[in-house]
Structures are given as C-alpha cells and as structure tokens.
C-alpha cells in the first residue's frame, strides 16, 4: 500500500530552512541543543527535552503525535551526566512513544505506545512492536524484531529493510503536502 497523501494546513506548521516541518503545538524545550538533519516531520504534542542534553535527529525522520524524546541519565564513577540522544536517519516513531534511549540507529521503526528504558540502544533496521517495554541499558543487534514486556528479540526483520525504510520515509515526506494548492502527487 503506498502511503496516502496527507494534507496539513500551513498555519499550524512551521517549516525550517532545512525542510523540517514542525507542528506549532509542540512541547519542545531547549531548542538550541536540538540538531535535526533536515526533512523531518514532528507532529503536534511532541516533547523533546533539549534542555537536559543535546539531541541529534537524523534526516527523513517522522515523530508522530505526543511522543517524547528524553536524554538518559548515566552515572560514570560517581559523576552523573545526562548523555545526549542520537537518533539516526529514516527513523519512524509512532504515537505516545517514550524514548529514554541513549542511541537509536538508522532505519528503526518504533511502534505506538512503546517505552524505551533509560540508556538503551536499538541498532539499525530493527522494529519495536507497539506496547513494548524495553528495559534500561538493553542493547539490541541490527535487524531484530523486538516485542513483549520485558522486551525480547522475537524474530528478524527482512534483510532489505534499509531500502524499504528509505523509500517509505521519502514517500511519507513527499506526500505530506500543505492543504491549498495540493498538486496530485500520489
């Protein structure tokens, strides 16, 4: 199924020069520490806690409504540091996701209402099914399908996930079209 064309009205959305489209009703704090690589969609109600540590988000990411990116607390030899969050390119984060992760690599798909524990790492091309609870400090190898509470690797993703994700995300971004003057680009 190709992705449907999604219309949005221009007034609610802010467009940055690198092509990011950010919904105005967001709860992003500490915008100076947030670095987005471009062509990323951030829907309404998204919280990114840039005030606690820097957050790097790759290109062609999609952060659906009300998901929450928070840096995680790491305690190295008595000195607590809020280590920054690095999210790779072509990452799709569904609604109501709470991401306390240290690092999410490229081509990852986080299901709705997934909770990622403090300081966990999800490698490339993995998929987290909806309603999973990933425990803190968990590391998952590439191409793993993660599900359950506590999260387990229950299968492997198709090997060509990288091409699928690039295609899907570019299509999602292209089909995200302002309301007036919508040209027919299926």
């Amino acid at each position: 199924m190709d992705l449907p064309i999604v219309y949005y009205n221009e007034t609610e959305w802010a467009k940055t020069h690198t092509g990011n489209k950010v919904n105005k009703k967001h709860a992003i704090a500490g915008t100076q520490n947030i670095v987005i690589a471009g062509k990323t969609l951030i829907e309404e109600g998204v919280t990114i806690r840039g005030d606690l540590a820097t957050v790097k988000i790759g290109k062609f990411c999609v952060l659906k409504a009300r998901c929450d990116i928070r840096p995680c607390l790491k305690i190295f030899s008595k000195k607590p540091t809020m280590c920054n969050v690095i999210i790779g390119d072509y990452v799709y984060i569904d609604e109501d996701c709470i991401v306390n992760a240290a690092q999410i690599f490229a081509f990852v798909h986080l299901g709705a209402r997934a909770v990622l524990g403090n300081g966990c790492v999800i490698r490339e091309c993995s998929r987290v099914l909806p309603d999973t609870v990933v425990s803190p400090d968990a590391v998952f190898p590439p191409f793993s399908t993660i599900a359950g509470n506590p999260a387990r690797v229950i299968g492997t993703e198709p090997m060509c996930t990288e091409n699928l994700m690039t295609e899907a995300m570019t299509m999602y971004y292209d089909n995200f079209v302002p309301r007036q003057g919508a040209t027919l680009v299926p």
Partner: protein
Amino acid sequence: MSALLQYGKIKYECSCGKWRTLPDLFFCRHCFKIKCDDCSCREIDAIFCPRCLDTSSPPEARLKKHKCTSCNDCPNCANVLSARVENEKYYLHCHHCRWSTRDAKQEDRESNKSWPTKENPVTNHLNEVTAYMKRMEVIENAPKDLKKGKGKAWSAIHLKDKFGVQQMVEKRRKAMVPEMNPLKAHDPTEAPTLEEEIENRSNVLRSLDQIIMQPLTNSNELLLPVKVPLQGRVMVRCDECERTLVKRDFGVATYKFKISSFAREFIPDIRMSRPVGELKIGETAHVFLSVTNLSSSPLELTITPQSGEGTIKCSNEPIQLNLPSSKSIDSAAGGVHAEQSDVIVFRQHNRVGLRLDVVPTESDLTSPVLDLLLNYKQDGSFSILAASEKVLKPEESGVDRILSAHLRINLS
C-alpha cells in the same frame, strides 16, 4: 518496516511453491529463480554476543561455551543486568525486578568481567567416562581396520611374507590396541530421604524458566547471574547452485551488505496505491495498483489477471508496459499513451499506476484475492555469468529469457 507499507497484503509465489511477501524473497542470479527463506540454506558467518556486539572466532567461542563472559542476564526475569559501582566495587543490578548479585550472596567485585557460574560438579567423572569410551572405540575399530587391511594386503601377502614383514605389522598393531582396565561403573546409591532433599529450600517458588536457564543449580542453592548466549549471524545461500545470495559486510554491527540479491531489485514491485473501496457483489470495484521497477535494467512486462479458483474475476485484458530502470537518467515519456489511458492512471519515471476493474462474486466476499501473472523480459544485466558464458549459452541468461512472477493481492 513492511508494517508501514503493509507489504503483508501482497504475496509472491516462490519457485518452491510457497507464498511470501516480496521483502522476504531473494533472487538467485545464476539459476534465475526466486528463492524464499525455506528453499535457501542459511549459514553462520560470524558468532557475536547480542549485547556487547563483539565477535569471537569459532574455537574461541567453543572454549567460552558459546556464552559471553562480560554480559549477564538476570536469573529472575531474564532481563539486562547492569553494573553499578559502590566504593570502587562492582555489583550487578536488574532494573526490572531489582534482583542484584547481593541477593545471591556474591560480594562486590573489582573487575566486572567474569562473574562466577556454577561448574558441573561431575566433570571429572564424566571425563573419565569419555576417555573410557574413546578407548573402547579404538578397540572396536581396530579389528575393522585389520579386516580392511588384510583385504588389500592379501593380494601382496606372499611377497611381503617372504621377509617376515607381516609379523612386524601384526606386532605393531597389537601394541596399538591398549590394554583394557575397565572403568569402575558408577554404582547406584540409596534413595535420598524427603527431608534431605527439601531442607533449606526457599519458599519463593522457582519457575520453569528460571530452572532451565541454569539447570545445574539445585533448589536449595541461590541463583547466579546467567551469561548471555552468543548468537550466529546468518548468511543466505541458494540451495541449488550454492552461491551466496545475501552476505553482510565485515564487522557484526553493520547493516550494509557485501553481496545482496534481494528479489525487490529483480522483480517489478506491485503495491496497492489506494485502499480498495467497499466490495459489493456484482458491482465493478476499482483496484489501484502501482508497479515500480527497482532493477537496473529496463523491463518490458505484461500483467495478465488470472481467474483461477477462489480468486476474483478481473475483466481487464493483459496490460503491456515497459518501465525504464530506476538508474537510467533519461526521463522516459512522462505522458500517458492515449490507447491505454483508461488503464494507466499515472506514470512517473519508473513507476506506473494501474486501475483494474474487479467484479466480486458471492464467494469472494469472505477472502477477496486478486491473482496476477507477471511475465517480463530484462536486458540481460540480471545474470552474473561471465561474458563468455553469456555468448555460449544465450538462452541461459540472454535478453529473450522470459521471467515470470505469480502474485496474489488480498483486497480485504
């Protein structure tokens, strides 16, 4: 990722007859066949620990008993055990169920490397049994070699015997057969009384999962951290011509591929571009498909709807298309040919939108499935035969070799 693009609705038929979604299929460029994960054999090309992602060579992995020395799992809820520091001493702590190595009466350690696990207490006895069995094997095999040996030696026995060489070989063979000191059998013992067996057993019930994670610890002993088992990274190989279909790059954490022949890059990728409206009996419903050519060669393809058993009758006649390859830069004819305008909805560089008319009958409503047959020709760049072979066996991989793919689309 197939969830977002809902690849689950469209199944292609593999050469072994199984129906799989396109991302799960591979294409063997030597035997020109579609391969699914059932009819391709898989091998392990690297052994790595899924948590700290460091690789270990097979003999090293075997010495470590295929368990990673530095990563541990919680014995209570099989979750991540993270290390915590208290006055320079490490102890392991599980965030999920807050089990910690202090519960197992393990004092904190300086190095977080190898936490103790329960050794097999009967190792020596079983090693003796192994050695004893090996000696028995040598004895058992000795006469067989002898019999085999005599057959060959018999023909030359007269010559050899002249100089008494045969006796010398016999003497040497006897020296080879070790003398037998039979190992004392492990004698059976009295049955332990019930009280002995359940004294100081903790009244917290131990579930089956906790037992099978560390079978050696008895019920009256405390659970110890469980080492994370190593995993093998998979390499796919076509089972007919033993050629590798998919091989990942060096290094365990990479997602790049050294060799990758996914079916997506060799078969036109058909997807539904718009959800099908509500199916009503007798009325023609429109199915909008998008055909994409992701391969590196322009394809001429004909799509012929099949109306076999249990599939929806489609009233379109076969559609002729030719799709430029995704890599060719000359932008093909953007417009839509007049005569096929009713069928072709839009035409992009290497994508074409089609509209098929479908008339569902009574039986189709439960599981409406549209059956399509796809025959296409490529410009010969698919096969990896050496140039000389291409010339010698044109029909093997040449231009006029017609490839076909059979697919079913679930319209529900």
